[in-house]
């Protein structure tokens, strides 16, 4: 539900956690893997046995710097780890090793292309920390979060490396938040530092949400929306919270600062229990870890290694195929294949890559671009079924378009007319209805003809001939 933009302006800041795909955890050398049997990737360090000491993962530090550079941040010449103290069973030490007042990267910006040009989103900071263990709540009423009786804890994820990114409150709509996340996701994937899959939790997003009257310059009270685990839920959650706040203000109420949980099934927002918010983290420098001082040479090398970022590629492609297709191709990682596919009808190629090829689940990196180009060029001359089948196979070893192109579509009008006549004769009622104005029935007739010809009729010809015959 969109707000009245002449009255209300959304003010949104995001906190994003990116799980790094290092081979080992942040402070011990247990494997960093997903989906293994519980508590099979643990050691005395990540189980917090007394007397153990953390040793940072050099790769994780380099990747955090790489991400900081991609976000155009300043890389701190000296940064520290801090202990963030809180008591919860997913945190065996009783504290999380994180960063506090001297994070590894600060003051960046991230460019988000939109249909009306770019928006620059300020980045407050990016810092390294260790992830908590995974807990499953069992028993008690209501299950999830509220009123659970006991927790089962799996420490495989405990201690794996995360980068937390905090943005300025520069995001102005749920849709923009979603676009930002899509671009950030693609960026970290291309940096080679994370799988960044929201469903798996390797990319997580919280949103700080407030509204203000259009023209107002200060900020009003914000709420924090937690744990939205898909792009759609992030957008839906923000929209629901914006609507809730506007309704409160318009009814003369006030927004209370609190942490909220969005339930995507019901679309409802509910406060997390106040006790869970009573955080008093008592940060202090982690005495078991020495400062990180990346050399200018290291930072320079990492800067030189940065690839061209998705936003820049979207801007380049936009002129050729329009914003939506450019955004879609780049954020789905298909623009590299798009560039390799020869052919003049760029929009048609982009559409095929975004729709049929994506639908067939083909890995774009495995596609032979020249063979795909032949297919796309011939798409009107072969049956739809053969085209789809060919696309689905286009990532296979040794794929050629030839076999599918041989299956020429029925384009002969006489042959198609004969089928049409049979169909029309068998469906007189629908013909009458169409002629008296129900033109939506055209699709029905097309479907019948396609079925009769086992999908081999050229749909363009079928459409033209049907309209012609039905007019009579």
């Amino acid at each position, binding site marked *: 539900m969109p707000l009245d933009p002449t009255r209300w302006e959304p003010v949104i800041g995001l906190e994003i956690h990116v799980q790094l795909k*290092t*081979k*080992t955890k942040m402070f011990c*050398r*247990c*494997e960093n893997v997903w989906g293994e*049997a*519980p*508590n*099979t*990737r*643990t*050691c*005395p360090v990540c*189980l917090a046995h007394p007397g153990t000491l953390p*040793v*940072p*993962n*050099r*790769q*994780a*530090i380099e990747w955090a710097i790489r991400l900081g550079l991609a976000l155009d941040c300043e890389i701190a010449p*000296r940064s*520290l780890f801090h202990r963030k*103290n*809180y*008591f*919860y*069973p997913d945190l065996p030490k*009783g504290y999380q090793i994180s960063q506090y007042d001297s994070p590894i990267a600060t003051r960046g910006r991230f460019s988000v292309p939109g249909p009306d040009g770019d928006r620059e989103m300020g980045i407050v900071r990016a810092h390294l920390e260790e992830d908590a263990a995974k807990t*499953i*709540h069992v*028993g*008690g009423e209501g299950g999830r979060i509220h009123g*659970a*009786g*006991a*927790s*089962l*804890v*799996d*420490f495989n994820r405990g201690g794996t490396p995360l980068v937390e990114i905090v943005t300025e409150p520069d995001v102005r709509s749920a849709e923009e938040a979603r676009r930002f996340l899509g671009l950030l996701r693609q960026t970290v994937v291309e940096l080679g530092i994370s799988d960044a899959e929201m469903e798996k939790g390797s990319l997580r997003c919280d949103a700080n949400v407030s509204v203000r009257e259009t023209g107002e310059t200060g900020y009003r009270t914000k709420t924090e929306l937690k744990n939205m685990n898909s792009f759609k839920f992030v957008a839906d959650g923000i929209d629901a919270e914006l609507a809730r706040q506007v309704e409160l203000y318009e009814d003369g109420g006030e927004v209370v600062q609190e942490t909220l949980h969005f339930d995507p099934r019901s679309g409802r927002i509910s406060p997390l*229990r106040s*006790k869970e918010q009573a955080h*008093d983290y*008592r940060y202090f*420098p982690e*005495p078991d*870890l*020495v*400062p*990180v*001082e*990346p050399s200018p040479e290291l930072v320079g090398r990492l800067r030189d290694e940065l690839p061209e970022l998705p936003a820049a590629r979207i801007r380049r492609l936009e002129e050729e195929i329009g914003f939506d297709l450019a955004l879609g191709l780049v954020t789905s990682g298909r623009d590299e294949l798009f560039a390799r596919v020869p052919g003049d009808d760029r929009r048609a190629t982009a559409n095929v890559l975004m729709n049929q090829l994506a639908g067939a689940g083909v890995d774009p990196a495995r596609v032979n671009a020249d063979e795909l180009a032949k297919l796309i060029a011939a798409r009107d001359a072969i049956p739809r079924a053969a085209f789809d089948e060919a696309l689905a196979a286009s990532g296979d070893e040794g794929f050629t378009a030839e076999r599918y192109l041989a299956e020429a579509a029925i384009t002969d009008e006489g042959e198609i007319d004969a089928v049409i006549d049979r169909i029309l004769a068998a469906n007189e009622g629908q013909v009458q209805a169409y002629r008296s104005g129900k033109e939506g029935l055209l699709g029905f007739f097309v479907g019948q003809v396609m079925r009769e010809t086992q999908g081999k009729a050229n749909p363009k010809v079928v459409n033209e001939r049907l309209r012609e015959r039905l007019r009579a």
Partner: protein
Amino acid sequence: MAITREDVLHVARLARLEIPEEEIGRVQEQLSAILEAVGKVSELDLSDVEPTSHPLDVVNAWAEDEPRPSLPQDEALANAPDPEDGHFRVPAVG
């Protein structure tokens, strides 16, 4: 700065510790004594001294990203009082 009874209860709650009523006063005194001792430092003029977060003059101590064997599941759970399905089972924390 003296530690109040409320400070003791607050910190105890954060750590989920239950302090018997008769011990609160003693804990209050001990914590105040510790703070007082550390507070000595603030009697010095330290305006041109960098905060010391670590006593060693060492930076960049880290290890390569090479996996080492983890504990087998039964060893990991050896000290768990109430394991269930390969997990540590703990009371829910409110």
